[in-house]
């Protein structure tokens, strides 16, 4: 893996992150309403106290000053302070992160496993009943709202069968239903792209050559095709990670789990914009990092991709 490629991707990621953070900053700046007033007016503060709070929050400084301060703070991991609670946003997010992260990771594992299975099954015999069934399950995963499948899962496995807890967090048992529900939703996108990729790969010359050499079909599939299809599956997982992060928010609400979801919804209802901005910027950070890691891993696995537009392909 060339240093040039790594350097280029790092620079790209940094640029996208900077642009995303800037958009988030500008969006909050452009929103009308004075946070200091909103915070203190209810408690009957005088206009002097409100002005003092404004200065405290740094809202009187000119736009460029606020922007530079915002960027510098970001590089140090400071996401500002909540307008509602006055606490540091970064701390609030870190506190709520572990349950959400656990859910997202568990759901990824479930989703990848299901998605790979469904996708490969569908691609092995395209346009037959097997393909139709597997693809339908995948499309269902994409279409069923996680908030409903979550409720169905609670109803069946918790209320009726009593196998698993309906709400709360803390143990692995509490994680099973939410992770399964969210993972199922995730598996749909994975399955579709894995299927498309495996169908493509099956048509490539090296596969025909392997068959011509007389290798049994099953071995050809499981060894050669799967290995070639695994690399793009990584990229798919990375690209769909956004769904996981958003889906975790909703799933937490259904299963009454603590986490970033609750934090975000409360912040939105109270228009606590620094918290909302902090959550989305963190979401963007995670997404960019995951995609960067996937691209680098993908390039390491498949040398043809490192070339880029300006080099010829040497196999």
């Amino acid at each position: 893996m060339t240093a040039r490629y790594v350097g280029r991707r790092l620079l790209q990621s940094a640029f996208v992150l900077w642009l995303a953070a800037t958009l988030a900053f500008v969006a909050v700046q452009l929103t009308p309403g004075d946070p200091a007033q909103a915070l203190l007016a209810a408690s009957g503060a005088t206009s002097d106290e409100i002005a003092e709070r404004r200065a405290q929050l740094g809202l009187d400084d000119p736009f460029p000053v606020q922007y530079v301060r915002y960027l510098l703070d970001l590089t140090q991991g400071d996401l500002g302070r909540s307008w509602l609670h006055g606490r540091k946003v970064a701390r609030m997010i870190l506190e709520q992160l572990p349950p959400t992260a656990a859910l997202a990771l568990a759901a990824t594992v479930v989703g990848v496993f299901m998605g790979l299975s469904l996708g490969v099954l569908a691609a092995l015999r395209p346009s037959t009943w097997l393909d139709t069934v597997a693809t339908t399950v995948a499309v269902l995963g994409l279409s069923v709202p996680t908030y409903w499948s979550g409720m169905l899962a609670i109803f069946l496995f918790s209320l009726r069968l009593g196998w698993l807890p309906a709400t709360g967090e803390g143990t692995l048992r509490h994680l099973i239903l939410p992770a399964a529900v969210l993972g199922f939703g995730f598996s749909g996108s994975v399955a579709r792209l894995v299927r498309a990729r495996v169908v493509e790969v099956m048509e490539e010359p090296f596969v025909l050559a392997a068959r011509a050499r007389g290798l049994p079909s099953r071995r050809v599939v499981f060894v050669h095709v799967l290995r070639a299809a695994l690399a793009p599956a990584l990229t798919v997982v990375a690209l769909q990670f956004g769904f996981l992060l958003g889906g975790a928010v909703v799933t937490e609400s259904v299963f009454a789990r603590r986490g970033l979801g609750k934090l975000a919804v409360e912040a939105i209802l109270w228009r606590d914009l620094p918290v909302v901005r902090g959550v989305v910027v963190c979401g963007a950070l995670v997404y960019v990092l995951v995609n960067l890691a996937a691209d680098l891993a993908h390039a390491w696995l498949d040398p043809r991709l490192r070339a880029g537009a300006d080099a010829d392909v040497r196999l």
Partner: protein
Amino acid sequence: MIQWGSAPRRPLVRQPAAVLALLWLVLVGLGAGLAPSLAPHGAVAADTDRGLQPPGMGGPLGTDLLGRDVLARLLWGGRWTLGMGALALAVDVGLGLPLGLVAGTLGGWVEAALMRLVDALLAFPGLLLAMAVVALLGAGTGSVAVAVGLATAPAYARVARSAAREVRAQPYVDAARAVGCTPWRILVRHVLPNAAGPLVAFAATQLGWVLLNGAALNFLGLGVRPGIPEWGAMLAEGRAYLRDGPWVSTFPGLVLTLTVLAANVVGDGLQEALRPH
């Protein structure tokens, strides 16, 4: 036997699943549109004596905690859910299509700049971006629709730009430019008609996404006022008495799922049928 070749292109009418899906969408649309005639007593007529009755005894789909008929609420709620979805899709295509087409047709620094902007927006997870826009606009029905449309417009822009780029690479565009066509004329007379197929297909898939996520925001309580029978909001209400009245959430969940599924299937079908060759 493993099939080693690829399947041929199929027009929409030869795809039974897509036809069924389209019929469902029409059915749901009609149901919502005809709600005043089909459920003239409205969706909010409460009768606590008949609260939480299962399907059969209290109306065809049962009643909820306040005695409101679930079927009537489904029909009227369709107006909310589908209406918000339509508005969101309009925002999505209205913003994403021109952005992507202009970027793909003009190329050069315009394309580079616009696509960097799109990349930055796509870095934010979709639902979270929609939630952030709702925070900026203030919670409510219109905010949710606009937010969901805005959140998915970058994806549409990307698809529109790829489609435009493909058309731009065709020889007849070179010919048009050689004859002296302005970029605008090229866009309107060459790019748009030839890119239309995949763009329409993707719009159908986007409809599924906006319905799903719009209802999600309503489920979380960020959209419609309490009591409005939007399908996502109905799910949130029904969650409270899942043990004693599962039908209250089952039917909106089922109808929403089928509608999103139908949109996805139609989108897939259109993609299959309108694939450029």
